[in-house]
C-alpha cells in the first residue's frame, strides 16, 4: 500500500502527468461538440461518444509507459529499488498507480462528454438513445478498458525501459499486429482482443463475448504484458 501511495505521489508531483491527465479528459470534448453540431440524428451519438474513449485510453497507455520507463531513463529507478529491492512489488505499484489515475481520467471523460451530449440532446428536444443500464455498461467498460491499457503500458515500459521504444512497441502491438490479425485471421476477428474490447464498450450491439468474458480477456492480456515487464526488470541490472 505504501508503495502504491508513493507511486501516486510521484505522479502528483510532476507536470507531465497532469498535462496528460488533462489531455485525456478534455481532448475528446471539442470532437463531441463538433459531432453534436453536425447532426440531428441523435441515435448513434452515445456510441460515438464512447468510441472516442480511444483517446483517453491511448493517453493512459502513454502516461503509464512514461511513468515506468522514464524512471529507468532518469535512473531514479535505482532509488525505488534501493528502498524496495523486491522489484515485482515496485512495478506492480506503478501499474496500480497508473491504473488509478487512468480510472479517474476515463471517469471524468465519460462524465464530461456523455454529460455534454445528454444536455445537448435534451435541450434540442431529443431522447437519450441508450437505457440507463446500457449507459452504465458502456461507461463502465470504457473506464475499465482505459485502466487495463494503463496496466499493459506499465508492462511495456518495464519491458523496454525506454519511453520512445516502449510507446512504439505498444503501438505496434495494439495497432499494427492487432490490425493485421483482425484483418487476416477470421477466428481472431471474432475472438481476439478487438472483439473483447468491443464487447465491453458497445453495449447495444451483438458480440461473440459477453461483457464479463470480454473484460476477462482484456484483463488477462494486460496482466500478461505486465508479467513480461516484471520478468524483464527482475532479470535486469540497473
Amino acid at each position, binding site marked *: 500500500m*505504501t*508503495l502504491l*501511495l*508513493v507511486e501516486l*505521489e*510521484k505522479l502528483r*508531483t*510532476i*507536470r*507531465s502527468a497532469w498535462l496528460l491527465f488533462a489531455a485525456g479528459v478534455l481532448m475528446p470534448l471539442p470532437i463531441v461538440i463538433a459531432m453534436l453540431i453536425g447532426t440531428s440524428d441523435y441515435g448513434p451519438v452515445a456510441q460515438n461518444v464512447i468510441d472516442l474513449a480511444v483517446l483517453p485510453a491511448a493517453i493512459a497507455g502513454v502516461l503509464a509507459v512514461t511513468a515506468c520507463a*522514464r524512471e529507468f531513463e*532518469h*535512473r*531514479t529507478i*535505482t*532509488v*525505488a*529499488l*534501493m*528502498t*524496495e*529491492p*523486491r522489484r515485482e512489488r515496485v512495478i506492480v505499484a506503478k501499474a496500480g498507480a497508473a491504473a488509478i489515475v487512468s480510472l479517474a481520467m476515463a471517469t471524468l471523460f465519460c462524465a464530461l462528454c456523455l454529460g455534454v451530449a445528454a444536455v445537448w440532446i435534451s435541450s434540442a428536444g431529443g431522447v437519450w438513445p441508450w437505457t440507463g443500464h446500457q449507459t452504465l455498461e458502456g461507461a463502465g467498460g470504457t473506464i475499465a478498458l482505459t485502466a487495463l491499457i494503463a496496466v499493459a503500458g506499465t508492462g511495456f515500459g518495464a519491458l523496454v525501459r525506454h519511453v520512445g521504444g516502449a510507446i512504439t512497441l505498444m503501438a505496434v502491438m495494439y495497432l499494427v499486429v492487432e490490425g493485421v490479425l483482425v484483418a487476416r485471421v477470421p477466428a481472431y476477428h471474432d475472438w481476439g482482443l478487438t472483439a473483447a474490447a468491443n464487447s465491453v464498450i458497445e453495449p447495444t450491439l451483438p458480440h461473440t463475448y459477453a461483457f464479463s468474458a470480454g473484460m476477462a480477456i482484456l484483463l488477462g492480456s494486460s496482466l500478461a504484458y505486465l508479467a513480461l515487464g516484471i520478468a524483464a526488470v527482475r*532479470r535486469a*541490472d*540497473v
Partner: protein
Amino acid sequence: MLTVEGLTKRYRGESVVDGLSFEARAGRVTGFLGPNGAGKTQTIKMILGLIHPTAGRVTIGGSALLDHPRPGRVASGVLDGGAFHPGRRVLDELQLQAYAAGADPERAEELLDRVELLPAARSRIGTLSLGMRQRLALARALLADAPLLIADEPANGLDPAGMHWLRALLRELAGEGKTVLVSSHLLAEMERLADDVVVIAHGRLVASGPLSELASVRERRVRIRCANPRVLGARLRARGLTVSEEDEELVVAGADARAIGELALAAQIAVHRLVEDEDDLEERYLALTAGPGPRASSARAADGGVVPASASPSPESAA
C-alpha cells in the same frame, strides 16, 4: 558492518569484478578506491542489490539485504550523480522519499537544512547545480537513517567548500555509528576522509585496511649521486638490490642510506649526494592500481592489516 565475500560479476565471460572480498566496519569511513573503470560502481550496485552478482555474497549486519524485513532501512546509497526527475520540486522529492522509506515527512525539511538546501526547497530539481543535486542525493539517502550509507563518488561536482562540508558530514555520520563506504578515484580526498581503505584495480582487490597502514607500506628509496655510478650500480645489484637511474642519479629501492653509504666507502667511490626518501601515497596508490592484482581473498593479512597485492600470495598460487 558490511561484508563482501568473493563478489564477482562477468559480462559475456569477461570479469568486471573478480572475487572481491572486504569489510567495512561500523563507526568508520571506508574509502573505496580505484581508478576509473576499476569496478567500483558495479561493486556498489551489487551491494545494494541493483546488479545481480555472478558469484559471491554480501551481508549487512550478518544477513543478506533481502533477508531484512525492510531492506530500505538497512542500506541507502548515493548513486548516478544523484538521479532525480528534473521536473519535481526539491521538497516534494524528499517528502515522497521519506514516505517511501517509512520516515517522518517532517524529516525532509530537517535534512534539507542539514545539507544546506532549505532555500531551494521550492525549486525544481532540474534548475539545481550538480553540487546541489549531490547534496540533495545525500539528504535523500539519509532519510531512512540506515546503518549503512554507500556513496559513489559523492564529491563529483562539489566546490572546495562543498567538499569540506561533505567530509564533515560523512565523518559525523560515522561518528553516529553508521558504516560509511565512499568510493572515489581521488586518493587525496580519501586521505582527508577515510579511516580505512579498500583499493581495487581491474575488478580485483589490491589492498585493504586502515589508511595509516597503507601509508606505512610506502617503499623506501635512496637516491645517490657519485663519481662512478656504473661500478656502484653493479655492486648494489650484486647484493640483490633494485637499482635504476634517474637524472644522473642511482635510485635504489629496499635499502637505507647508511648501508649504501658504507658500500660506496668500501668500494672507494666518492659520494656527492645521498638522500633517503619515500614514495608518496599517491605514487603508492598508482603503483598498486597499475596492474592486475591477485584474487581478493589474499589481500587482507591475517592480522587485519594492509597488504598490497605483491606482498601476499593468492590462494591459487599458494596451492
